[in-house]
């Protein structure tokens, strides 16, 4: 345990490298998944169309998809023998981001849908009364619901940063290339180096807390702690 604390305290270059990659992959995936999931959730909340229930059912089902299965699917797609093999993306951080986007987009969309639906129920009469256009409605809901939407994104980020099954397969846990905190933890556990694995786990939790606090800090300074 002391050894682990020393690694953190001295900014061990390997630890910094895998921590930075963890952050880059998970934040990248969160940003992309939010760009897809948040508007999708809002759109599902505001629009009634025949396939709506079906789309929501699919989203909820996708949330339960085991990451290993997603990893395998992405592996099949980007393997040299797969349809996108020529891109040479397998075992790169990009492939890891793609896998994580697939895993967390349903979560983000689902949480966003829930939040926006409640807001829409509150705002419905007013927005209709004021003759807001469809675009204005979505914009108003996304803006006024931004704190709930941030929670949706953070839920996605939490899932991404702690995910190991999918990125192990599509990233390959290659030292100095695709090794992140979670795959390093799996590796150390495999070696029976429980202290090291646990220490990396603490780094992971610390990182997640920092990102959460950071985002809340940003959203606070922006509007003042009023809501």
């Amino acid at each position, binding site marked *: 345990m002391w050894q682990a604390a020393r690694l953190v305290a001295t900014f061990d270059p390997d630890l910094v490298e895998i921590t930075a990659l963890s952050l880059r992959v998970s934040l990248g995936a969160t940003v992309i998944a939010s760009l897809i999931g948040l508007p999708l959730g809002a759109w599902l909340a505001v629009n009634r169309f025949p396939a709506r229930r079906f789309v929501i059912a699919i989203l909820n089902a996708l949330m339960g998809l085991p990451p290993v299965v997603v990893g395998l699917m992405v592996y099949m797609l980007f393997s040299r023998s797969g349809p996108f093999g020529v891109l040479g993306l397998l075992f790169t951080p990009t492939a890891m981001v793609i896998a994580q986007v697939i895993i967390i987009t349903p979560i983000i969309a689902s949480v966003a849908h829930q939040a926006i639906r409640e807001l829409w129920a509150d705002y419905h009469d007013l927005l*209709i*009364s004021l003759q807001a256009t469809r675009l204005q409605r979505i914009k108003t809901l996304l803006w006024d619901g931004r704190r709930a939407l941030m929670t949706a994104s953070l839920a996605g980020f939490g899932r991404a940063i702690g995910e190991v099954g999918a990125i192990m397969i599509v990233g390959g846990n290659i030292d100095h290339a695709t090794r992140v905190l979670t795959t390093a933890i799996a590796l150390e556990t495999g070696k029976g180096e429980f202290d090291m694995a646990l220490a990396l786990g603490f780094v992971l939790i610390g990182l997640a807390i920092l990102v959460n606090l950071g985002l809340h800090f940003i959203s606070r300074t922006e509007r003042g702690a009023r809501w």
Partner: protein
Amino acid sequence: MTLTGVSVRRRGRSILGPLDASLNGGGLSILMGPNGAGKTTLLRALHGLERVSTGDIHWTDPKDAEGRNQGFVFQTPVLMRRSVLDCIAYPLQLDGVKRAEAREQARARANEVGLNVNLDQAVMFLSGGEKQKMALARALMRRPRILFLDEPCANLDGRSVKEIEEILLRIKDGGTRILMSTHDLGQARRLADSVLFLHAGKLVEQAIGDDFFRAPQTAEAKAYLKGEILL
């Protein structure tokens, strides 16, 4: 404005009408009737918020028919997750008015309705009466030709009621047609140019304000004015 055979049905049940009425000229009309009579439903139907199942609403002046020219104050104020000032300014922001300009006007409206609170706080921290004043100020932002008010003074203290009534009279004199529901008989007496009395979804009596209170024509209206329970 003329209503012919207007009815609203929900879940296989008729909750309003069929109902014929004509409301002509300016002035302030009061909708009265016991709880569940259909006052809210009628106001919402006139404003286009409630789908009309049968019949037709005809506006004499087509300008009045436009939702933009109508303002609506809901029975329970709709609170946006914004500051009081931004809530009031919202209709103008939808119209593309610059935020600073919209807020400037919102401040003036807030003053007008006697909303003397810190306008930068969240709207949800306002008291019930303050929320209703906020909703009124917001409905006035686009200077509507027609103003619908659904029990706008339900939670107000005597002084505020008086303030609001003065504002409504001023707006009326400015040429805005007002339709308003209320359970406050004194208020109805003070404001009504005409009265529409609803009972069980039907328009039971329509009269000039003074006439209604002096000599109600129907048994239902008589009982209601006496404070008896209507079945």
